[in-house]
């Protein structure tokens, strides 16, 4: 079935999987177009016209081309407000503002230390770069402080922005999945009662399980 909605990038990319989860939550039909990062397809001139920083994902529909996974997710939630998970980005301005607040907290406070840890604990090894023990320790400490805040918050409400699953929780799925399953850092989450409960709930969602299935069904290296 032809569809105007296209998403470019491999499901294994955290930013791509963030958008995949959003599309699935909103019941949006889409085509996933592979981009071979190992072969540098994202740095080629044709792709750079779509995404000037040479990164995945890129989103296209019949009228627009977008990049930055959180901007794409916001657009999807607005455009498809009346289908799928209708509360994903709130149903009134106050709800939206609270969700935005936790989505920004993810982008500004959670994402930076988790990105460093992912690089140091997996990609550095693969790229044969020496691990920086100090950087690992510093960023584990930063992440622990953020998770302490989450632990308190999730003692007061079921999800970050309130009692419903929203874009703010969804945005945490990709990097947490890596830290728990590929970087052996699950204890950071499971040792905190409320954070552990929250992670169990959000990672058990059918939509996220589908994304993980997509990640696992692609070959890690091209033949």
């Amino acid at each position: 079935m032809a569809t105007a909605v296209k998403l470019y990038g491999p499901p294994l990319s955290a930013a791509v999987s963030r958008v995949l989860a959003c599309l699935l939550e909103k019941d949006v039909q889409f085509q996933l177009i592979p981009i071979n990062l190992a072969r540098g397809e994202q740095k080629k001139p044709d792709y750079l016209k779509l995404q000037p920083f040479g990164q995945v994902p890129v989103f296209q529909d019949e009228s627009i081309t977008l990049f930055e996974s959180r901007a794409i997710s916001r657009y999807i939630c607005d455009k498809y407000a009346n289908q799928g998970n209708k509360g994903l980005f709130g149903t009134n301005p106050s709800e939206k503002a609270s969700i935005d607040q936790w989505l920004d907290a993810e982008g500004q406070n959670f994402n930076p230390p988790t990105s460093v840890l992912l690089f140091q604990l997996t990609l550095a090894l693969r790229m044969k770069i020496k691990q920086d023990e100090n950087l690992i320790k510093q960023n584990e400490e930063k992440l622990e402080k953020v998770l302490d805040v989450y632990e308190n918050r999730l003692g007061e409400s079921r999800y970050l922005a309130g009692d419903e699953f929203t874009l703010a929780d969804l945005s945490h799925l990709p990097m947490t999945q890596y830290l728990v399953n590929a970087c052996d850092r699950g204890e950071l989450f499971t040792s905190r009662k409320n954070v552990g409960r929250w992670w169990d709930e959000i990672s058990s969602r059918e939509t996220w399980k589908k994304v993980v299935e997509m990640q696992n069904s692609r070959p890690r290296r091209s033949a």
Partner: protein
Amino acid sequence: MAIKVHGSLLSTATMRVLACLEEKELDYEFIPVNLRAGEPKKEPFLSLNPFGQVPVLEDGDLKLFESRAITTYIAYTYAKNGTPLISQDPKKMAMVFVWMEVEAQRYENAAAKLTWELCIKPITGRATDDAVVEEYEAKLATVLDVYEDRLANSKYLGGDCFTLADFHHLPTLNYLMGTKIKALFDSRIHVNTWCADILARPAWKKAFAMKDNK
């Protein structure tokens, strides 16, 4: 007063919110928070922002943290007041959101680090780390190369009009213009024009002048 901002005039994030309220010509009460005394890390502030950071906005019963979530809320809620910092056209606004994320995810990382090393540390009597400056200067240069291409084809980052996508840069941009990093902006023609344009905005100048008036 319905709108209150808890923050510090030393904080770029606070300035982002105050300048936004000025752009929107809204009345508000500014409640100074003592960063040096560690006020954000204690109660009662922690109940406003569990991350212990400024600023926090109160609007009636609503309390918000994260400066960009606050400015987005203000721009939408008070769309009819002052400068329209957003677009009502969903496609145009989608592009604004893209470049708002670029600022938050790519520009901010380098700009905040450089502001910290070159501006804030010296004020507070700490030594600048030259290696960090070199590293982040290179990162900022890469981002500004993309901005240069974008601004060659578009008057503002989000499109034809001044929006939050441009506006969010102002606090760190202002600081960096007082350092050697200014050269990175000056040496790129379209970036240079854009910087001069946005830094000249009366609302920004008014917010910035609060530092002198306190």
